[in-house]
């Protein structure tokens, strides 16, 4: 600094002097306010989620305590065996019918093909035929006027001839399992049919007879098997009655206890109102009401439960009967069944038998060890939520909130979606970025990104109306019977939902992968080219490895989108709250399921505000939030690593 000290302000007439007040501070405050508000809203959302959800576990615990005290849990010990028994007999029944139906497959197809032809022809002649029927009905005694009768008959004949000639270019529905003679016979029978008769043509009757004869013939050697299945199924009758009877008792206990609690609560509310009442009169009124509000005695759980516990020997006997039936049926089962599907069911039964037997033998000790007043810990409540296999709500018996079926549904759908979206999205990105010409690039990129613009509800509609139907019809075809899970039982299933979600994830995965590939310095590809690498070698050995973390991030963000998507799964996934049956192998993907997102969307509108169920849905929301957050966080980390990788 020169000799003079630094002045505190610029002299008024100096050109450096600032003119007027600066608006910089104002702008700064505006933008800071925007950023701050967004963050505050995010924090509020999280706080809200946690507050609503946090009350769930104590409330659920209270319900579980009542479930135990009233003895519902005791009855459920046996009811579980009953359910398992039903599943086991249903496996046997499926094996039996698969075997019988497989033997009659040809007859069945013949009969179906004939029906297809007949229904085609009947549809074609329907106008003339119904007209004939109507005039016949109204004709009365003097009969139908001859010219009307003739003209309608002529019309009928004309339509019939046209129908028998078949659709232009396609002909009549195909009948590959009928001999040409039979087909000719069918057509001539149809031609000769009286327009007013509702009898089936003789060939149809004959074929149906053939089918039932074949069915009888096929089931004859299986008669022992059938008898064994029926005996096994009947073995549960005793336990069934027992569970129903004791179930009524414990349910009554639970209801009484619930009612009493409600009354107590009401009294407390009234007393509180009385304490803060303004006039003496009102206070007295409230107090009277409070005295009258409790009409029931508190429930003596021990006494109420005694009649149920007294029947423990009956339970034991029924349990032993089930075990005996299992041993019996295993002895009588055929060693193997010819039909592969039937064989699969049979071996599934054999595999499950060990598990079922263990379950049965566990029941009696569990009943002996069971105590109605054992405490329910908060930890076991939380575990019950996380590892629970049942999500049962709105029932009379007991509500259970177990997240496993929903989680499995979400996970399986995500697996399908990603196995579709990764190859398509990444493949398209590789093509667009590395192999396509500039013209193709200009076309492909906006087109794929356009997929994102389709509202998910429209996609869901497409899934229900088009994809589900096409898939199911395709799965009925013989040519695809080798595909696991075909023919598909449910039109709406995880596979359909997964396909649509995959479609939704493609733009995300494509765009981000394309960016990642684009960010690979061209010097790498140039060096590889200069070493004499082919285009594909350069792509797969240099460019793709260099972009891999970016592509992984793209896939993860796609996964986040798939897990968080609601509308499509709600519409298309079939919404069955059950853990899918993994014994079907890959066919598991063709079963319906419910998801974490779908359950919230479906049930939140219907639950009473503040109830346990309501809070359970919030906990599901929290879990969903945590999953998607961690997926996105990992993706961001990967992207960051990718960006600094080349510095």
């Amino acid at each position, binding site marked *: 600094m020169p000799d003079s000290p630094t002045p505190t302000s610029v002299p008024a007439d100096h050109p450096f002097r600032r003119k007027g007040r600066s608006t910089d501070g104002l702008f700064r405050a505006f933008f800071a306010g925007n950023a701050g508000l967004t963050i505050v809203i995010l924090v509020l959302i999280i706080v809200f989620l946690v507050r609503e959800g946090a009350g769930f576990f104590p409330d659920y615990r209270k319900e579980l305590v009542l479930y135990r005290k009233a003895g519902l849990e005791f009855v459920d010990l046996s009811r579980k065996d009953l359910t398992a028994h039903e599943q086991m007999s249903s496996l046997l029944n499926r094996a039996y019918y698969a075997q019988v139906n497989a033997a009659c497959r040809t007859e069945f197809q013949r009969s179906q093909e004939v029906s297809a032809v007949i229904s085609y022809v009947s549809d074609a002649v329907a106008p003339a035929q119904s007209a004939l029927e109507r005039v016949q009905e109204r004709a009365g005694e003097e009969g139908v006027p001859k010219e009307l009768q003739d003209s309608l008959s002529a019309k009928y004949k004309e339509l019939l001839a046209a129908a028998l000639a078949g659709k232009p270019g396609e002909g009549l529905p195909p009948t590959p399992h009928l001999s040409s003679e039979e087909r000719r016979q069918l057509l001539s029978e149809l031609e000769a049919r009286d327009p007013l008769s509702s009898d089936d043509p003789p060939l149809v009757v004959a074929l149906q007879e053939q089918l039932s004869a074949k069915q009888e013939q096929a089931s004859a050697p299986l008669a022992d098997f059938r008898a064994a299945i029926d005996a096994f199924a009947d073995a549960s009758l005793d336990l069934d009655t027992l569970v129903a009877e004791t179930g009524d008792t414990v349910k009554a206990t639970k209801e009484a206890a619930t009612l009493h609690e409600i009354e107590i609560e009401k009294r407390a509310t009234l007393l509180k109102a009385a304490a803060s009442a303004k006039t003496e009169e009102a206070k007295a009124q409230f107090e009277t009401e409070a005295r009258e509000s409790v009409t029931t005695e508190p429930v003596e759980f021990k006494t109420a439960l005694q009649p149920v516990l007294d029947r423990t020997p009956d339970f034991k006997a029924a349990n032993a009967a089930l075990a005996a039936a299992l041993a019996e049926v295993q002895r009588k089962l055929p060693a193997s069944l010819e039909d592969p599907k039937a064989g699969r069911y049979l071996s599934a039964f054999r595999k499950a038998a060990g598990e079922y037997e263990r379950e049965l033998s566990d029941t009696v000790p569990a009943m002996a060890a069971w105590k109605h007043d054992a405490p329910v810990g908060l930890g076991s409540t939380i575990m019950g939520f996380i590892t629970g296999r049942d999500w049962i709500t709105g029932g009379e018996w007991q509500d259970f909130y177990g997240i496993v079926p929903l989680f499995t549904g979400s996970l399986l759908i995500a697996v399908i979606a990603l196995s579709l979206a990764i190859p398509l999205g990444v493949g398209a990105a590789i093509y667009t970025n590395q192999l396509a010409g*500039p013209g193709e690039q200009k076309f492909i990129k906006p087109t794929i990104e356009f997929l994102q613009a389709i509202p998910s509800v429209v996609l869901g509609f497409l899934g229900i109306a088009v994809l589900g139907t096409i898939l199911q019809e395709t799965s009925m075809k013989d040519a695809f019977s080798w595909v696991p899970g075909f023919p598909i039982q449910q039109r709406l299933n995880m596979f359909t939902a997964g396909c649509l979600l995959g479609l939704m994830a493609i733009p995300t995965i494509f765009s981000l992968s394309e960016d990642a590939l684009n960010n690979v*310095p061209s*010097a*790498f*590809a*140039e*060096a*590889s*080219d*200069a*070493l*004499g*690498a*082919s285009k594909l*070698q350069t792509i797969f*050995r*240099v460019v793709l*490895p*260099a972009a891999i973390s970016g592509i992984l991030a793209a896939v993860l963000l796609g996964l986040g989108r798939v897990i968080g998507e609601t509308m499509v799964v709600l519409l298309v996934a079939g919404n069955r709250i059950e853990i899918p049956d993994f014994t079907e192998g890959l066919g598991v993907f063709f079963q319906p399921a419910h998801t974490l997102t779908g359950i919230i969307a479906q049930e939140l509108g219907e639950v009473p505000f503040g109830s346990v169920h309501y809070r359970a849905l919030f906990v599901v929301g929290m879990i969903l939030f945590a999953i998607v957050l961690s997926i996105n966080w990992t993706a961001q980390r990967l992207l960051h690593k990718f960006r600094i*990788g*080349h510095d």
Partner: protein
Amino acid sequence: MVSDSPSAAVPAISIENLRFQYGEKQVIHDVTLDIPSREITAFIGPSGCGKSTLLRCFNRINDRIPGARVTGGSIRVAGIDIARPDLDLQTLRRRVGMVFQKWNPFPKSIFDNVAYGLRIHGEKDRSALEERVEYCLRRVALWDDVKDRLKSSAFGLSGGQQQRLCIARTIATRPDIILMDEPCSALDPLSTLKIEELLLELKNDYTIVIVTHNLAQASRCSDKTAFFFLGKLIEHGPTTKIFTKPDQQQTESYVSGAFG
């Protein structure tokens, strides 16, 4: 190694009346030049004179650039016109290696960088790969520095080391010709010196063409020098002649530092 070892008499690269365009812009005008085998030829000239473009024609790496094309004349490498449509570009590039201005090792380990060229040409034998990698790294005087960390990323090396790694990567595929596009322009003087020593050592086995802005470097290392100006070859000949008594006035002005 190539079976028909080219003799010094036959030029490694011969260019005839070459014309080259980027889009509508003509950047090389009728260049005719023979590049002798087993020698270092330096291309000098001010920026934008087309010397790098010409170099990048020799292995047709310019094909990567949309709109870049040869519009007349020919380039023969080992006697074959490389513009022929039935030419196997991958084999050409294997025999005409290239080192770039900015070192560009792959985001792989040191070993994998050197082995890359061998692997893409089908070498799978682990011991053969190891042997060749060691040979190449020794050749560029990098072996002692990196032999203990062959598995670590190439990005951990210094700039000069990375450039030498790129040279090792280039010679791994046994080229006849090495093209160098200003290999030292981003290096410090000490690293530059090491690369220059390496060049002199390599020229016994390889034909080297180097583009440089550094006139001192050209005069130190090269046997032949070609001076380009505005896309034309002004003069070429033995390096000593170009730097001491060139025929052309423009060359004299450039090498004496009057412009450029």
